């Protein structure tokens, strides 16, 4: 219940043009559920389905994912779960085009891979790089403006709004090296807001952050979901998945994609799996 009934966070920036959109805002500034800022929900996106056909992914000379078939439906919110080494991050990298598919096919339905926003795992970014939060967030524009067009005052204004939306208003000038892990994750979420991508991939977005930050960021994921974006998030917390994620893809069980039991509505996928229990560490077992 921790993740339910979390009030609306600050308004996201106004809609930014990208991809195909359906509908426009109606007057009145109220969202689908009547609570959220209309400017946010006005930006309804309509991503195409992402189809995987017998996808095999290879990394470091080993198949980490074999024969995965299935579809991320438009606007679906899918948790990607499984043990370490099951190929979760590898699948996300393949989805956004950073890793070639060894065999099989990923059909993005005509979507440019650059319109897929990947929020990388903690530690993939160089946090000692001398750059301010505001610049990191504004760099999110590069995916759409290209690498050479100017990021102007208007774009920076949106970056500031995104920073405010993740609860970091006023911290834009701070270098990223001076942030806590939770604050840095908020910056990455702000950058993803700026990217305004129809498909969003989150690689372990809630590891190494406290519950308050997790609740705030989960509220943003919920907003994205309401805007119709397709979201795939790597997660380890089965309670969170059950509470918030309608669909689950469970990798590493040898079942995903074959008979469908490893990929589908969360209730079905996780039903055969007992709730998470505290596991004994090797030391505790020995004792």
């Amino acid at each position: 219940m921790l993740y339910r009934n979390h009030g609306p966070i600050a308004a996201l920036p106004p809609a930014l043009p990208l991809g195909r959109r359906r509908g426009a805002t109606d007057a009145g500034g109220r969202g689908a559920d009547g609570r959220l800022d209309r400017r946010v929900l006005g930006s309804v996106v309509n991503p195409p389905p992402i189809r995987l056909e017998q996808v095999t992914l290879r990394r470091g000379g080993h198949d980490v994912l074999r024969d995965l078939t299935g579809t991320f439906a438009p606007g679906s919110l899918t948790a990607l779960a499984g043990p370490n080494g099951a190929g979760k991050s590898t699948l996300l990298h393949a989805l956004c085009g950073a890793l070639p598919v060894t065999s099989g096919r990923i059909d993005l339905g005509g979507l440019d891979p650059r319109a897929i926003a990947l929020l990388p795992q903690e530690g993939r970014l160089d946090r000692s790089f001398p750059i301010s939060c505001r610049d990191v967030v504004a760099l999110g524009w590069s995916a759409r403006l290209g690498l050479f067009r100017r990021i102007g005052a208007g774009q920076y204004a949106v970056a500031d709004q995104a920073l405010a939306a993740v609860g970091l208003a006023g911290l834009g000038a701070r270098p990223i090296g001076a942030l806590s892990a939770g604050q840095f994750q908020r910056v990455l979420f702000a950058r993803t807001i700026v990217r305004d991508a129809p498909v969003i991939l989150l690689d372990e977005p809630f590891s190494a952050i406290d519950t308050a930050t997790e609740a705030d960021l989960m509220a943003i994921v919920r907003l994205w979901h309401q805007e119709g974006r397709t979201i795939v998030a790597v997660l380890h917390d089965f309670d969170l998945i059950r509470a918030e994620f309608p669909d689950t893809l469970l990798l590493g069980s040898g079942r995903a994609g074959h008979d469908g039991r490893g990929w589908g509505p969360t209730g079905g996928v996780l039903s055969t799996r007992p709730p998470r229990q505290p596991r004994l560490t090797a030391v505790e077992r020995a004792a």
Partner: protein
Amino acid sequence: MLHDLIVAPFGLGFMRRALAGCLALSVAAPPLGVFLVLRRMSLMSDVLQHGVLPGIAVGAAIGGLSVWAMGAGGIVAGLIVALLAGWFARRTGTAEDSQLAGLYLVALAAGVAMVSAQRGVDLTHLLFGSVLAVDNTALFAMAGAATLTLPVLAVIWRPMVLESLDPGFPSSFGGLWHGCFLGLVVISVVSGFEALGTLMSVGLMMLPAIAARHWCGSLAGQVTLSVALAIAASVLGLLISFNVEIPAGPAIVLSAGAFWVVSLVAGPREGLIRRRL
């Protein structure tokens, strides 16, 4: 007295040319050094400066002791070494720095052997530089390299920042920007060898960049300060070289090294004194 030490040397033509050349190098090379440091590729600068020596030797053997022949040979050799280093890194995965160490030791030995085998080529000048070697042609080469480097760096600035910060961010032709950048480093190394020598030419690139790191928390600040430090080191080093009669390369690099030591000890960011407090 002070006038004799500081102003009078630059009244001489060759000193003025050396100063102009080093100033050009000071404007262009340190920003590249800042990016090399940030990308944890400091060792790559060593590899490249040693890697250009065989090319310079081949250039000298084919085209004689002309700046252009040696420079072209050096650039070709530097690019080959850069490509090899990248290929090693991709193929072997781990222990990249050991492969680089192997590469530059072989390149240096090959270069020294090839230079020694030729008559009329002064190995000391090639390795350590000489202000006397900076004729008009060499000066044009140094100024030309700086003129090319600054606009290209301005163009690839944002892709470089993105790639250094977040290698997974979508920037098409990711390898292309990195290639452009390494090309600029090679050109900068080669353009400096007449004045500073191949063993020293990276000093003006790396030391001001490493020193600036201890003072500034922003990328723009680090780049600006590194250029300022490089200019100061050039002036100071050339004066020391003139008055004490040591080669210009070591004199300039030692001056830059002094700035680095001061920064390391007293700098507000990760400086030794601040750490103790």
